């Protein structure tokens, strides 16, 4: 096939980019080479729109062993143990084929983790769907949940937490972000950087088929009504083979045979081989006739761009081939020596004894385009004036019941019951708490993890929203008694070629950077997903943050269920009553305007660290951060979980009860304290100048507030627990 500008454009390259390729190469690329350029230069692999801004992220810290740039980030958790973790998007494929799209998303992120030598120990997922009324939502949700479960359950890694959100901005672009944590000995971490020339390059795992050719370009394109035509690019996952691959790789890694290893993810053999060579400042030569193929007559172009799943590329020490082959034979996986490292600094491809491609590596990696796209700042919206007289007519009980059954507030048990969350025998905190917690096998330590996003806040004011998500993640970890260590981020945005979307991206990143720096909560890995747009309608900006924290003694973890009648309940952190962008304002009053709550990083840090101290001293019986819905929703969840009630004290001062109960001011937690500890707790809070309200007393199975609310917990529980199940069954 003759390569022309129009062929290049069909490959998703811009006219100028094609001209630049020809200039750099000093000739026109052949079709295989063009395919390679298009894969490496698209947004998904080159980060051409985001690179400039991602540099602003705070990525260093005492416990950071590996920051962004590798397959995943690595943090030190003491005693030679390290945690490898990352989050990744699989949005586009999941919209087209929810089961396989979500399943292969989970498979892909797990490979990123075990590529580094870590055994996966926990999965999380953040999933966003369109409005529940939208005709596609139910099937997409069902398919995605089955896909996530289907893959993770089969591998035998527990799914310990997640987040599920509905908003009409996702009607045409759902989000499926999958996160995995792995455990590794910090002296036995494997990297993708190749070293040494003339070392054998090994292909292992499944055979290569014509799957998902140009999947990486699809991930960088917007949808339109002709989406059906893009269908063949979806891949089918084979979790069984991945499980074998996991065990085989870990078995091989016990020895010192591997120089570098890289999974074949987006853009398959192309990006994996080029990244290894590029990082090692080497060349690589591959004989594509040796690649195990599933189908007949596959061309070099197809072999290089295939996105068949469950495959790995390894640079091995010379002479270890037979040793390695035995291991892969035992696990019944393909194994082939397909090439070698060279000092040419080029990628050279052979096929049936002909040279079919030759490209200097730096043209593909370092010299790939980088754009400084135009972007627009979002002004802080004006404050909404709520009519207090109108509020007075609202019945508090009815309002609370309604909010507890809102799609975004309701219980997500229907989802996580379908995820194996107990396999591996170390799950201390199952889904349903503020963060999932798994024990480090055979030790006293445990790690906590949570995924969070707040698209509405980010949409209203991206900079505040970016800061807020980081803080929410920090709070969720603290709420279970974990010391926050580091985060990973999945940045889901619309079309970066539009100034508004690009502005949302830039400001969210800046917000994330500021909060994570202040809190010493560095970003160690992440992923960007642009072009979440259908027919010109983009999603709300949705940065997802996955946080990881450490618990030194798992027996000290805190859960959110109220424990004992007579215990005192405090709200710690100050409540101003910020209703703009709250669930109450947006979904109950239908007032969508206004600014998100502001973040005070000093308070955030002070409150969080002090609370950790209280927990460590054993003074806290239960704890929950105040997030969506405000105080009353948070307290109701604690009641429902503990099957206990609460008698709420009359409010002090002049604050309006709706503002107090439903405001979404940040930096707050609810804690339950045994009467005998009250003095100590208030002393510590006072000494740290932390504002707190004595909110109420744990009571027998009734939530009550003066004459305004008298609700049996069973009634609250019923509205909260069954919205999702009823919706899925209807």
């Amino acid at each position, binding site marked *: 096939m003759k390569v022309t500008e129009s062929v290049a454009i069909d490959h998703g390259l811009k006219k100028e980019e094609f001209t630049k390729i020809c200039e750099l190469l000093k000739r026109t690329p052949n079709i295989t080479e063009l395919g390679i350029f298009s894969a490496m230069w698209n947004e998904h692999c080159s980060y051409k729109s985001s690179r400039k801004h991602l540099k602003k992220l705070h990525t260093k810290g005492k416990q950071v062993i590996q920051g962004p740039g590798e397959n995943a980030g690595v943090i030190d958790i003491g005693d030679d143990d390290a945690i490898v973790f990352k989050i990744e998007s699989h949005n586009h494929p999941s919209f087209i084929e929810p089961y396989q799209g979500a399943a292969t998303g989970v498979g892909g992120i797990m490979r990123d983790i075990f590529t580094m030598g870590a055994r996966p120990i926990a999965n999380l997922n953040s999933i966003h769907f369109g409005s529940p009324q939208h005709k596609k939502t139910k099937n997409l949700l069902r398919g995605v949940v089955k896909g996530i479960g289907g893959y993770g*359950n089969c591998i*035998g890694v527990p799914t310990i937490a997640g987040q599920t959100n509905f908003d009409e901005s996702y009607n045409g672009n759902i989000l499926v972000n999958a996160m995995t944590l792995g455990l590794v000995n910090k002296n036995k971490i494997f990297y993708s950087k190749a070293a040494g020339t003339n070392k054998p390059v090994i292909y292992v795992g499944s055979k290569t088929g014509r799957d998902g050719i140009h999947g990486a370009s699809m991930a960088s394109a917007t949808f339109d009504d002709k989406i059906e035509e893009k269908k063949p690019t979806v891949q089918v996952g084979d979790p069984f083979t991945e499980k*074998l691959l996991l065990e085989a790789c870990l078995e091989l890694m016990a020895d010192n045979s591997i120089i570098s290893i890289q999974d074949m993810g987006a853009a398959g053999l192309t990006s994996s081989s080029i990244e290894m060579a590029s990082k090692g400042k080497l060349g690589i030569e591959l004989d594509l006739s040796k690649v195990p193929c599933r189908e007949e007559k596959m061309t070099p172009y197809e072999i290089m761009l295939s996105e068949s799943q469950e495959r790995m590329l390894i640079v091995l020490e010379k002479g270890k081939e037979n040793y390695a082959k035995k291991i892969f034979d*035992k696990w019944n996986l393909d194994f082939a020596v397909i090439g070698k490292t060279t000092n040419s600094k080029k990628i050279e491809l052979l096929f049936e004894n002909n040279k079919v491609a030759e490209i200097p590596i730096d043209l593909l990696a370092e010299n790939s385009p980088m754009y400084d796209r135009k972007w627009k700042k979002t002004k802080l919206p004006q404050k909404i004036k709520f009519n207090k007289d109108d509020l007075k007519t609202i019945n508090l009980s009815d309002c609370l019941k309604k909010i507890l059954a809102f799609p975004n507030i309701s219980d997500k048990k229907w989802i996580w*019951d*379908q995820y194996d969350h107990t396999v591996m025998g170390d799950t201390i905190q199952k889904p349903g708490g503020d963060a999932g917690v798994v024990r480090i096998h055979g030790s006293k330590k445990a790690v906590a993890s949570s995924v969070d996003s707040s698209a509405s806040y980010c949409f209203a004011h991206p900079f505040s929203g970016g800061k807020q998500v980081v803080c929410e993640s920090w709070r969720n970890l603290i709420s279970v008694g974990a010391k926050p260590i580091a985060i990973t981020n999945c940045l889901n945005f619309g079309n970066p070629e539009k100034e508004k979307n690009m502005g949302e991206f830039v400001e969210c990143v800046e917000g994330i950077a500021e909060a994570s720096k202040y809190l010493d909560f560095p970003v160690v890995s992440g992923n960007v997903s642009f072009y979440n747009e259908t027919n010109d309608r983009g999603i709300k900006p949705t940065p997802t943050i996955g946080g990881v924290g450490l618990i030194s003694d798992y027996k000290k973890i805190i859960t959110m269920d109220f424990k004992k009648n007579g215990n005192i309940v405090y709200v710690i952190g100050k409540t101003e009553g910020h209703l703009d962008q709250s669930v109450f304002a947006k979904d109950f009053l239908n007032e969508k305007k206004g600014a998100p709550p502001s973040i005070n990083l000093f308070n955030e840090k002070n409150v969080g660290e002090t609370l950790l101290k209280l927990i460590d001293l054993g003074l806290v019986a239960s704890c929950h951060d105040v997030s969506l819905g405000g105080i009353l929703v948070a307290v109701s969840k604690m009641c429902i979980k503990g099957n206990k009630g609460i008698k709420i004290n009359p409010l002090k001062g002049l604050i309006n009860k709706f503002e107090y109960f439903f405001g979404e001011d940040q930096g707050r937690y609810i804690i339950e304290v045994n009467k005998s500890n009250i003095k100590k707790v208030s002393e510590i809070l006072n000494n740290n100048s932390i504002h707190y309200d004595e909110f109420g007393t744990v009571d027998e199975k009734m939530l009550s507030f003066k004459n305004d609310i008298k609700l049996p917990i069973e009634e609250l529980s019923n509205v909260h627990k069954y919205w999702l199940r009823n919706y899925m069954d209807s």
Partner: protein
Amino acid sequence: MKSSVIIFPGSNCDRDMDVALKKFGFKNQMIWHNDQSIPKSDLIVLPGGFSYGDYLRCGSIASKSKIIRSVIDFANSGGLVLGICNGFQILTESGLLTGILQQNKYLNFICKNVYVKVKDKKNKYFNNIKKDILELHIAHNEGNYFCSRDEIKSLEDNNQIAVTYCDQKGLENDENNPNGALKNIAGIFNKNKNVLGMMPHPERMIDKYLSGEDGSLFFENLLGNLK
């Protein structure tokens, strides 16, 4: 006491079972499915997971593996064979136990704690357990037990039903049946009661900081019988 846990490609509760057996004092060894024979053991365990991806039917492919011959011989000579979850599915597919485990009635994978009623105590798995109702944990997509009318009658007549799903008080009805299993069956024996297959995972119930502790009773009793 020696136990052997057999690992099939795709098993994923093998380590959990190993941890549990060792915690209660078994000398456990892990056996690879391709091995021709099993070293001398007092107990053989087929662990949970997704042997061969659960492709075709759960347990069907594993039931054709080389090692199964030795498991069958061991069982026929009276040795104790325990199959948990996928292990139970392998036992039915290999003919050591009657019936089949179909997809859950509500079509979803289920992971949660359940209560089961111990239906027979004249066997080495449950004989000295004081409680009649145990809290255990299930995690499966195909746990919906089914067999023919004649077979169920014979299971009942010979007291081969081991455990049934129930509520905290022992009530066995549809509401407490998580997967649609015939007669709420969660586990059954062979005729001689040396082979037990059950869907619930006792190995996930050996720590109060995890899902609970009733699984400990099961392992303690088993060990007591083999001492």
